[in-house]
């Protein structure tokens, strides 16, 4: 019996990374149910906090954790593809609203870029941080590659994406209820534009229609942002 070896396995085995991620999620979902789905008990938020607690308590580095974490993360690709199915289920609504949706997503892409850079500029953040903020609203792979292309810090961009995704997922329902904006298509589209996949996961719990439009808006805003940011970035130099 070698207790040190056991601890080492816990820290560095890919299996333990997978297990801890699943366990954190399971506990977060139970907690969310216990709180009757209160927005602050969002499963991504609670799951990440539980996971961070575990990593800090066991002294596991991010790199070691990701040997297993990456296996869970890998499923994000097929899950994104799967969003086509609920979207197809809303085909008739999509057809009827195609014009308004297209205008909204292009406008939303612009708001996403300008609002982040504008507020950052007002608060006198350094230029490289402003560049990394341009992609705040889009899904991580797009954010990182676009940010790299314009001289931002890709890792910082990824952090901005994740933190604002979690914040958006928590705030969207209370915010829209407060303003009496209950339409599933409006809620979903706005969420996809501002809070990408994490927001999409959130509104899927509310309705499949909201989730479908969030997925569409997330994808198309990614395109809009990837085109607009390189055009607008020279203004910051």
């Amino acid at each position, binding site marked *: 019996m070698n207790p040190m070896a056991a601890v080492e396995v816990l820290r560095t085995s890919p299996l333990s990374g997978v297990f801890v991620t699943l366990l954190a999620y399971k506990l977060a979902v139970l907690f969310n149910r216990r709180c009757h789905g209160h927005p602050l008990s969002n499963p991504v938020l609670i799951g990440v906090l539980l996971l*961070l607690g575990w*990593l800090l308590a066991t002294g596991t580095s*991010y790199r070691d954790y990701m040997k297993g974490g990456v296996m869970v993360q890998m499923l994000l*690709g*097929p899950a994104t593809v799967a*969003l086509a199915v*609920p979207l*197809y289920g809303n085909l008739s609504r999509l057809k009827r609203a195609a014009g308004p949706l297209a205008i909204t997503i292009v406008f939303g892409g612009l708001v996403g870029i300008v609002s982040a850079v504008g507020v950052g500029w007002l608060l006198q953040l350094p230029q490289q941080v402003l560049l990394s903020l341009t992609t705040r609203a889009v899904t991580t792979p797009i954010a990182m590659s676009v940010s790299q292309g314009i001289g931002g810090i890709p890792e910082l961009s990824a*952090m901005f994406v994740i*933190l604002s995704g979690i914040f958006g997922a928590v705030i969207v329902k209370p915010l829209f209820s407060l303003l009496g904006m209950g339409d599933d298509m409006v809620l979903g589209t706005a969420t996809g534009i501002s809070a990408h996949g994490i927001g999409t996961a959130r509104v899927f719990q509310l309705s499949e229609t909201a989730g479908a439009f969030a997925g569409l808006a997330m994808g198309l805003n990614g395109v809009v942002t990837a085109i607009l940011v390189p055009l607008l970035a020279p203004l910051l130099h």
Partner: protein
Amino acid sequence: MPMIETLLWLVGYQLAGELISRSFSLPLPGPVLGMLLLFCTLAARKSVPESMKQNVPRFLSHLSLLFIPAGAAVLAYRDLLAGFGWQLLVVLAASTILTLLLPGLLLKLLLARHRHKEEA
């Protein structure tokens, strides 16, 4: 077998998306392109394969799980984040709210007008 079939569809379309994205150096990541391709396929064949009808809603109900590993990256970059302090949190919160609200209000307005026109 429906599970295997579902995975073949999803992984296959992601792979196709990656191939097209790389070959033409498009700004779109493979999965997003894969989603758009699968959507076009479903629209063309006018139905969802039985296997995906069962499995996809179940798979997507656990979408939150897949974002948890990315959150752990905060651990690796906490010094970088802490260096910019409270201003960063203000920027992220303000921008997220603005980007939810303004497009949301615009779409609400456009849809109301649209419906009005259709009825007229």
